[in-house]
């Protein structure tokens, strides 16, 4: 479908103020830790100092000091195996986790839950718990997890859904189209290299936290900083056999780190045991070392092309570290291929596969990009290397082989998320405009003509480009719904399960509804993410909220519109086809009007009384990818190896941005996180498996002033299956910085970096070796 409709929009594609904006800039108490419930116990977790051990005995008798309400060990919590992963049921992640287990599998794994009147008492009590461990040999390097005599990390009999736990393999996947080996033989040029991406921490500003309590009617209620309230409710039911209400208040960032259960089982266990409210807020150290990280991955990338630049074969074969527990193991790994390789759909053969292994390190989980950053780093780098070998401009090379509108890739059908995927034709793809317009604004061809090294100042400049795609939800899996209820004062309640983690989804969903109902965002009162009050939504992940929850909201608004016109037709005694919605009301052909408030007032009290209310759900058949081309200019200090990103320019096709300021913010923020992953964020582990870089003092996320300029440009595009033409925007920004920076460094000094993060020390010694 090639037409680009331009609908006339009043609210959508406008940068309206965030609906929670005022509360946030005023510092209102809207986050989990801001709620004070009387009689609340403070919950702290005793954590394992060993990477791999069995608890031989645990004696809490001396720790029951005054002020301690209870101490729970593995003996006191349900022995029900589950996965922490917040995913659709049945989850494609292994069930390999207990609330507390007899075995500990990483430094930081939970050993006991302490509930006390104050934090001070809990900490003092914690020191008095006596634990005897039988220390086992750990696997601290995931590249040795499948060694012949490697210790088995998951030997529990209850485990299910893991590929081969006896060999520490949590998941395995492979697929091939055509024959890569044969194609490579026919190629004029082949590149075969191995690339590494790190176990990046989300480092969201608000640590994980949850409160549980019985409401006055005895209903278990959990307030939690989560991206997945409905999954949380389901998993709590599985573990404890209790029904509950899960409420997500405002969240101080998630980035996938809150797409899992972390704290909830601990507080629920305490509330069930004591009857009292229980609150557990992680310290920064716990968030850094005992929640989850990005899956560190190693990929061997092979690419082959002809001398005219035709790409013939691609292969990514990988090893992913899922750490001590396998949440999101298979799915993140698969996205490393499913949301990268289809970008180059013209190859004759493509192969993707590998293993996801357990190790005795902090569990890995969902993190913005969800495998695509880990897959795009090797893919874009290997193509950049290939372009250089051929002697072709990387932009030209990538454009020559990348997907366009109207095309498809067989990978869409073969690779879903944890299962088979769904076929789709690309309806919107402006990657060419992104590359061409971007290269013009960046002055790519001009800059490439300039000398790179300034001997006087001992500085080198380099320019790199990276291409990326992502997805917009997981087709046939992700479902969201919306309820709209009309009030007698001209406002509407919009109830959505969708989870705003600071992304602004409450706002854009209100914009979509306001657009359909011809009213303003102020008249749409959004209430979200409360499992008792809002309809189901799978939660904030997979870049699905705008696309899936947005489509659900649009569907609901359209149904509400029909109900309104129907009722108005009755009240005004005019045929429906003569009526239209116009500025907070209904207008008829002859000019007479009926405001929304008058309409619902009549329907409440005097006229065919009924409440106008609708609920609609949406599941997508497709997941139209957004596309991004990013240009990086780096400056390298030759005598120290320090790399600074001077300029980072993003040209993105995300369809129609529902709210341009919010969409821009998503890309700017993702670029910064990607630059963090590429240049700053480096976890260091000591010999015992303890993460030393456990706070902002040692784990450096980019601070103000560390990055030069980040810019975002939206290319005009329209996705016909998206609400008002929208696609997703929030993850894709993380896919390009790693490769763009590595490509720029190669451009500057001819040194190819294949491991992130790029440490200035390592680059310095490479520069010295090269004699620059």
């Amino acid at each position: 479908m090639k037409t680009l409709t331009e609908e006339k929009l009043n609210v959508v594609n406008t940068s309206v103020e965030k609906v929670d904006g005022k509360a946030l800039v005023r510092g209102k108490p809207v986050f989990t830790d801001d709620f004070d419930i009387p009689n609340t116990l403070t919950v702290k977790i005793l954590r394992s100092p060993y990477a791999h051990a069995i608890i031989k005995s645990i004696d809490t008798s001396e720790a029951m000091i005054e002020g301690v309400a209870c101490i729970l060990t593995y003996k006191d919590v349900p022995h029900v195996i589950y996965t922490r992963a917040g995913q659709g049921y049945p989850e494609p992640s292994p069930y390999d986790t207990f609330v507390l287990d007899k075995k500990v599998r990483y430094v930081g794994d939970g050993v006991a839950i302490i509930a006390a009147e104050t934090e001070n008492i809990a900490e003092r009590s914690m020191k008095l718990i006596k634990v005897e461990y039988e220390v086992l040999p750990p696997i601290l390097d995931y590249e040795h997890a499948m060694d012949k005599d490697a210790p088995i990390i998951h030997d529990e009999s209850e485990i299910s859904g893991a590929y081969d736990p006896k060999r520490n393999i949590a998941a395995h996947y492979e697929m091939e189209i055509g024959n890569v080996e044969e194609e490579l033989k026919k190629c004029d040029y082949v590149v075969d290299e191995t690339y590494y991406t790190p176990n990046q921490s989300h480092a969201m500003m608000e640590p994980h936290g949850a409160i549980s309590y019985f409401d006055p009617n005895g209903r278990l209620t959990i307030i939690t900083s989560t991206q997945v309230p409905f999954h949380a409710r389901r998993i709590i039911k599985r573990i404890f056999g209790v029904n509950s209400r899960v409420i997500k208040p405002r969240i101080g960032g998630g980035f996938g780190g809150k797409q899992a259960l972390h704290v909830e089982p601990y507080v629920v266990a305490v509330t069930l045991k004591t009857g009292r409210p229980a609150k557990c807020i992680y310290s920064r150290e716990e968030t850094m070392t005992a929640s989850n990280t990005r899956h560190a991955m190693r990929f061997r990338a092979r690419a082959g092309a002809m001398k005219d630049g035709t790409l013939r074969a691609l292969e990514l074969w990988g090893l992913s570290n899922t750490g001590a527990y396998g949440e999101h193991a298979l799915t993140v790994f698969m996205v490393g291929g499913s949301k990268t390789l289809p970008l180059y759909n013209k190859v004759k053969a493509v192969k993707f596969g590998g293993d996801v292994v357990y190790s005795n390190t902090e569990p890995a989980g969902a993190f913005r990009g969800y495998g695509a950053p880990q897959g795009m780093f090797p893919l874009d780098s290997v193509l950049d290397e290939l372009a250089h070998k051929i002697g072709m401009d990387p932009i030209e090379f990538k454009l020559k082989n990348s997907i366009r509108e109207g095309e498809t890739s067989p990978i869409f059908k073969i690779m879903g998320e944890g299962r088979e995927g769904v076929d789709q034709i690309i309806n919107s793809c402006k990657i060419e405009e992104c590359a061409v317009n971007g290269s013009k604004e960046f002055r790519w061809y001009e800059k490439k003509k300039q000398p790179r090294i300034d001997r006087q100042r001992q500085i080198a400049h380099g320019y790199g480009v990276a291409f990326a795609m992502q997805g917009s939800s997981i087709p046939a899996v992700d479902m969201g719904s919306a309820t709209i209820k009309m009030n007698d004062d001209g406002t509407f309640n919009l109830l959505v399960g969708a989870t705003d983690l600071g992304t602004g989804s409450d706002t854009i969903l209100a914009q979509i509804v306001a657009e359909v109902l011809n009213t303003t965002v102020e008249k749409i009162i959004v209430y979200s993410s409360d499992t008792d009050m809002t309809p189901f939504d799978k939660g904030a992940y997979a870049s699905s909220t705008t696309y899936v929850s947005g489509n659900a909201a649009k569907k609901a608004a359209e149904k509400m519109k029909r109900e309104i016109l129907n009722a108005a037709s009755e009240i005004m005694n005019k045929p429906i086809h003569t009526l239209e919605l116009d500025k907070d009301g209904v207008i008829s052909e002859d000019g007479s009007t009926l405001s929304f408030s008058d309409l619902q007032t009549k329907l409440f009290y005097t006229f065919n009384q009924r409440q106008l209310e609708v609920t609609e759900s949406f599941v997508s058949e497709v997941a139209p990818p957004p596309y991004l081309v990013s240009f990086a200019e780096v400056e390298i200090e030759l005598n120290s190896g320090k790399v600074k990103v001077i300029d980072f320019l993003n040209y993105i096709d995300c369809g129609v941005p529902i709210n341009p300021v919010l969409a821009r913010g998503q890309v700017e923020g993702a670029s910064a996180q990607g630059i963090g992953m590429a240049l700053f964020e480096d976890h260091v582990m000591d010999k015992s498996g303890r993460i030393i870089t456990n706070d902002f003092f040692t784990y450096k996320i980019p601070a103000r002033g560390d990055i030069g300029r980040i810019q975002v440009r939206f290319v005009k595009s329209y996705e016909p299956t998206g609400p008002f033409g929208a696609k997703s925007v929030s993850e894709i920004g993380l896919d390009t910085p790693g490769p763009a920076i590595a490509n720029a460094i190669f451009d500057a000094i001819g040194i190819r970096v294949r491991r992130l993060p790029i440490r200035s020390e390592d680059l310095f010694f490479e520069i010295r070796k090269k004699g620059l």
Partner: protein
Amino acid sequence: MKVKIKINDKDQFIEIDPGETLLETLRKLGYKGVKHACSTASCGACSVQLDGKPVLSCTTFTAAVDGHEVKTIEGFSDENSLSDVQKALIDEGGSQCGFCIPGLVVTAEALLSENPDPTQQEVIDYLKGNLCRCTGYESQTRAILKAAKERRLK
């Protein structure tokens, strides 16, 4: 022990533990806008103004602040209107999850009172100690420069 602190222009007499931090005291008193995001004086989310100067409340002993004046985000917020800094942050998309924002506003207010016409680099340098993970900082710099300009015109 007892201390007397003027918080947001109101004198308060508070009973505290001697080793209590200002962050703990303020949150206990209900100033929930002051955020706890790290324990190593590394992120700025707990920033408040002490005698007009931005400091980290997480590493300030409340006992040391006896007799002094503290201003939190609540002291810079009015129920009926937004300050130019607050409005600009909303308009430019500088507040995403909002967790770093109270500390940022308090520190930015100090910047503008010391330097009403800061350059872009001065804004960046002054606010270096306020980390943000959501925005990538661009929108916040735009917002504060915009607010500074508006404030000068008033």
